[in-house]
């Protein structure tokens, strides 16, 4: 029996102003796969993520998740179906504490995000679960700190912690190592290894160490189309990839 892909994109096109950013792109990702998505700036990686998570709608083409057409679903419905994402440009609840950020993600996951029938302070299991997630992300000492007073590296970790709290089936990470030092990036890889266990992953990242460490297949995008797809070794050896992306023979 052939497994249906967890996520399938069929003939996705999307334009902004003058030219197409994605041009009839098709992509399919099986459950449990860890897919790296690379390509030069402007290749359409972030646009692709926004189309999968619902921030954008395609001009044409369909997005299928577990065989379900989600092309026109708003982001919160896709999140509830099990799609979680992190953000290239940090997107947190800055005035709230680290604990309150994680709690917000947990309340939504447990389906009690907007109830008036519970008192917040009576939700001890949620507090305990936030503590566990904070511990996993190395944020336990900062649980009561206001997020916008935290250093950038810790805010990056909180971004990942929120995705962890969602317990998504499909994890989409948009440049999780952006702006991190080499040491911080190594710590981040360990954290990501721990939290994506058992999930399907789509990873957009410029730092190739992160891509090689976390992906078992890589798709290379160029000008809104799939240039090539394969294992890290195959992609690394592909002359076309080396030309457009890895920077060889371009002078």
């Amino acid at each position: 029996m052939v497994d249906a892909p967890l996520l399938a994109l069929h003939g996705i096109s999307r334009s902004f102003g003058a030219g197409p950013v994605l041009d009839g792109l098709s992509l399919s990702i099986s459950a449990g796969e860890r897919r790296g998505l690379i390509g030069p700036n402007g290749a359409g990686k972030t646009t692709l993520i926004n189309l999968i998570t619902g921030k954008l709608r395609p001009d044409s083409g369909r997005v299928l998740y577990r065989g379900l057409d989600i092309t026109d679903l708003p982001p919160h419905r896709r999140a509830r179906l099990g799609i979680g994402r992190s953000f290239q440009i940090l997107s947190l609840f800055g005035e709230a504490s680290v604990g309150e950020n994680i709690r917000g993600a947990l309340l939504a996951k447990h389906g009690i995000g907007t109830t008036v029938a519970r008192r917040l302070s009576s939700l001890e299991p949620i507090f305990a679960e936030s503590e566990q997630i904070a511990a996993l992300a190395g944020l336990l000492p900062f649980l009561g700190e206001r997020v916008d007073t935290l250093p950038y590296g810790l805010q990056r970790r909180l971004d990942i912690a929120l995705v962890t709290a969602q317990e998504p089936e499909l994890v989409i990470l948009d440049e999780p190592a952006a702006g991190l030092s080499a040491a911080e990036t190594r710590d981040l890889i360990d954290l990501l290894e721990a939290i994506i266990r058992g999930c399907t992953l789509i990873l957009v990242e410029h730092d190739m160490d992160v891509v090689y460490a976390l992906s078992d297949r890589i798709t290379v995008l160029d000008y809104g189309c799939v240039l090539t797809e394969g294992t890290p070794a195959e992609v690394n050896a592909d002359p076309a990839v080396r030309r457009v992306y890895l920077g060889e023979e371009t002078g």
Partner: protein
Amino acid sequence: MTIPGRLGPALSVLKAERGRRDLGGALATLALLAAVAAAPWLVPVAALNDLGQAVLLGLFAIGFNIVFKYSGLLSFGHAAFFGVAAYAEALLLRAFPAVPVPLLILGAAAGAGLLGLLLGHVCVRRTGAYFSMTTLAVGAFLYTIAFKWHAVTGGTDGLDEFMPAALVLLPGWRLTNPSITEIYELSAAFLIPFTLATWLILEHTPFGNAVQLVRQNEERAAFLGYDTHRVKLTNYGLAAFVAGIAGALWAISNGFVSTDSIDLTLSTTVIIMAFIGGTAWFWGPLLGSAIYIFGSDRLSAVTQHWQLWMGLAFIALVLAFPRGIAGLASLLASRLVRPRDG
């Protein structure tokens, strides 16, 4: 994911800190509501009329601030909901004088709340200045209806003589020619439970938490699974309902409803009240309305240019204490408490 039964040390610290802040807020809340309830015994009857107006406009200002504080949206047309409920209450009293008045008040307020949900569909999709402009347009539109639709609203004459000779509180419990004190008590009997329930919802339930998360970062909230439009819309409906209770009671307490209860001046007065009291605290607007009403009363006894002095005082207050009187009070309280803590 397994959940341990024990809370770690970091969390206990967090909860203790939060607990202290909550306790201060809860004590101030109880003190304020106790003062509202006890006013008929504390305040001379001559001042009770003014206080009744202050309490109702304060309830209305709390309604305005539900949208401003919790959703971060500045409404320039909140009098629409106050006014619609005031007119509705007058018309309901005229049509159903035998129906218990609490039901009529709830009906008029529910009408305002539903109108809020309807208009909110358009308004809360916008943010910042665009939200404010949309609410201004909606406010102006409803004012124009009230002004022009003479057959229903009485136009510039307004509506009067809708108060029945005896106000039915419950079947078998009537108020004949209710006194100022009785009207005040009716207002307080609505204000206290409804504001308390709203405060609990917004400060202590996941829904209130969601409203505040959406204000801080709507996009992230959506990607975590929150239906952000619905959260904002529900909160807007709640704010319209609270303003509606105030408007319905306003009609009863004045025995008269005119375009003054729905015009844009009232929409801006309520903003000024909220800012005087302090928008960062749920109860700040109630405080602000009392200061506004008694301040303008005193000033107008001294000079006919009282609005000029009121305006100057407001500017000075906003510049000196941007968090209003409540912000100033909490600052003073924390200064008093801290030395004993350390």
